[in-house]
């Protein structure tokens, strides 16, 4: 009985603390208006390295703007997406600056949820034309730019040169998927898998690389009239290729594997090749990486298209209902400026400069030296991807490895679960994609 009482007291105390924390957070967002001296900017962001570096360096901005405090709220990608979506969609106004993926920016921009940044970015010192054109294109709707890329990425094929050399095989700078599959099967052994490919269900997990495979095989999610194409012969051929490759020469437990798991496997020599985000290169070449200097990088493998890399960026945007809009725009400009890139280089190290955002970064000799292994190919791939027409046939949306409609995250997620069943052998690829077609068609019908 006594212990029960103390438990309930503890729970009560816990609730009080949580309630206070919530009030504190809400109060912080509203602190100060545009005219007053003390301004608190609340920034919601995702928990990866480049964002944490920004938090470390925010003091420089605060020193240059007396009275301004920037408050970081760092979250997991999934949490960030649902929290920020709910906040922005309901006009709750909790955040002055939000970190938004390139999938959401055009949709939110069109919904009128984000501040149009075209005019504020036009001053000469900021040099908006220095932003990588394809990345900028993804963030623009009807000539209005709604967000600024903080960092951008494409996808690369990465391979362990030692393992390929030992097996007497090699890869060109621009391989085809057939060549990659042959090499994967040739180097596959009981200790080392031939290739690591994402198999974890989710539109942003499995379907990021898989959609690029589908597109280079000539398939796509929808045609120009929003008819679903998920069980078209090209889509089925691509997914069959992917699942066969996984079964013959992939990692043993694909449903458990996404970016982080594959990164670990390649670092530890458990896989010979890996097709994933270009941002992985900076981690493979980091000082503590056991495979530093041993990795080769190629363009994303292709079949029918010239280029098959994806395009993604994490961007900073200012919600329409922010109470400190002017100062928020000021911060967004600072965090994506040339000056900020230099600051990261000088303070934290040149290999940590946010990649895939500014052309001038790639022209900086210090960055070129620190990121020699991967910087040139990253820039080359990002600049050659066409987000308006990545596949063989034209598409009615801008975006490579996703479809820029609200229904897609649901459609992609459900179809990826069906494909996971096919990977595990619980269904055939054709059965999975026939079901997927129905799900995708419901999403397509909503666009008509």
């Amino acid at each position, binding site marked *: 009985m006594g212990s029960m009482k103390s438990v309930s007291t503890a729970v009560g105390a816990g609730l009080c603390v949580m309630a206070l924390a919530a009030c504190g957070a809400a109060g912080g967002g509203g602190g100060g208006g545009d005219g007053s001296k003390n301004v608190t900017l609340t920034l919601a962001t995702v928990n990866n390295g480049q964002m944490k570096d920004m938090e470390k360096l925010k003091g420089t901005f605060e020193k240059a703007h007396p009275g301004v405090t920037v408050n970081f709220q760092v979250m997991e990608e999934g949490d960030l997406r649902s929290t920020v979506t709910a906040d922005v969609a309901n006009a709750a106004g909790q955040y002055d600056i939000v970190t938004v993926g390139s999938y959401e920016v055009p949709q939110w921009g069109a919904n009128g949820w984000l501040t149009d940044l075209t005019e504020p970015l036009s001053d000469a010192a900021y040099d908006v034309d220095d932003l990588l054109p394809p990345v900028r294109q993804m963030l623009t709707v009807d000539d209005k730019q709604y967000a600024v890329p903080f960092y951008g990425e494409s996808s690369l094929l990465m391979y362990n040169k030692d393992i390929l050399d030992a097996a007497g095989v090699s890869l060109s700078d621009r391989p085809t998927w057939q060549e990659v599959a042959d090499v994967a099967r040739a180097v596959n052994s009981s200790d080392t898998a031939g290739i690591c490919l994402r198999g974890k269900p989710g539109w942003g997990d499995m379907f990021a690389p898989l959609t690029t495979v589908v597109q280079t095989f000539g398939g796509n999610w929808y045609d120009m009239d929003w008819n679903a194409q998920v069980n078209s012969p090209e889509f089925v051929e691509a997914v069959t290729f992917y699942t066969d490759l996984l079964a013959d020469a992939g990692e043993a*437990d694909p449903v*458990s594997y996404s970016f982080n798991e594959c990164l670990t496997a390649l670092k530890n020599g*458990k896989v010979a090749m890996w097709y994933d985000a270009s941002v992985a290169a900076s981690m493979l070449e980091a000082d503590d990486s056991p495979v530093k200097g041993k990795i080769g990088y190629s363009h994303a493998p292709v079949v029918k298209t010239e280029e098959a890399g994806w395009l993604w960026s994490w961007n900073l945007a200012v919600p329409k209902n922010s109470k400190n809009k002017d100062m928020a725009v000021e911060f967004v400009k600072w965090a994506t400026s040339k000056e900020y890139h230099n600051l990261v280089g000088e303070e934290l190290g040149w290999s940590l400069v946010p990649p895939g955002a500014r052309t001038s970064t790639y022209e900086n000799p210090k960055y070129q030296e620190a990121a020699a292994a991967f910087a040139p190919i990253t820039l080359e791939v990002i600049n050659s991807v066409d987000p308006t027409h990545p596949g063989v046939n034209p598409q009615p949306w801008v975006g490579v490895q996703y479809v820029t409609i609200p229904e897609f*995250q649901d459609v992609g997620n459900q179809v990826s679960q069906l494909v996971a069943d096919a990977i*595990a052998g619980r269904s055939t690829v054709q059965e999975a994609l026939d079901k997927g077609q129905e799900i995708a068609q419901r999403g397509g019908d909503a666009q008509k």
Partner: protein
Amino acid sequence: MVTTLAPAREGQVVRRPAAPRGIRSKLTLPRMLLMPALVISIAITQIPFLVTIYYSTLRWNLLKPGDRGFVGFENYLQVLRSGDLFPSITATVMITGLSLVLSVFSGLIFALLLDRKFIGQAVARTLLITPFLVMPAAAALIWKYSMFDTNIGVLNASLQAIGLDPVAWNTQYPLATVVIVLTWQYTPFMMLIILAGLQSQSKDILEAASVDGAGAGRTFLYITMPHLRQYVEIAVLLGAITLVQVFDPIAIMTKGTGGTKTLAYLLYERAFIGLNVGEAAAYGVVVVILTIIVASVALRTLFSVFKVGASK
């Protein structure tokens, strides 16, 4: 747990005579003082449910701010038409049922072992309780990376040590994966409740049984087991309530594939991946209705079966 519940049960049975008028007026003030608490608890438990019912009649996708309106029962029809509901009910029943049976069974075995006197008993008990104290998300991550992993996982290393092929747990056996983790987590909980039951057995009766010449097996079957019945009942009831809501191992390991999309995970998907507030609310209402039916019919039947079995 059991001792705190017992007086409450008796309190319901005893009928108090109506209070005389004087006492009733004395009770007015205490009742008035209770009102704020009562009103607040009704407000925080019932109003969200009413709001959910209202949402379930709307066409409302968070990403489509302009397109919001009343659709009547359309969302409920979509719930029934989509074909996700019944597989999800099966998944919930399978995962909850299997984990319950396995954790009660292994909890019973561990409780019997712990009920003996041996050196280091306290240490063993603490170690056995540990899995229940680990946060569910942390437990799922530990299992994913250190136990099930095909390269470095303990389970696959042991399989390879005895000459078997490694098993791709999450890909090939998602249901078993989730059930194993839940059984590992809930065995200590069952063990503690059953252990409390074992230790509350009267030594006199056990002694009388041995004087009458009953062996260990018979004593266990005819004296210990019936005595444990009510402890197992309460363990199953509490375990079922928490296991039905399981979310973490599914979100972290299987992502709802291969018959592991429980109602809790399905609801999460509809609300936070589909961002479809109306449909998610309809799923929520359907789940509440199903839970009420199950709670009022199935549990009552289940426990009456227990009681009939005991009286024989």
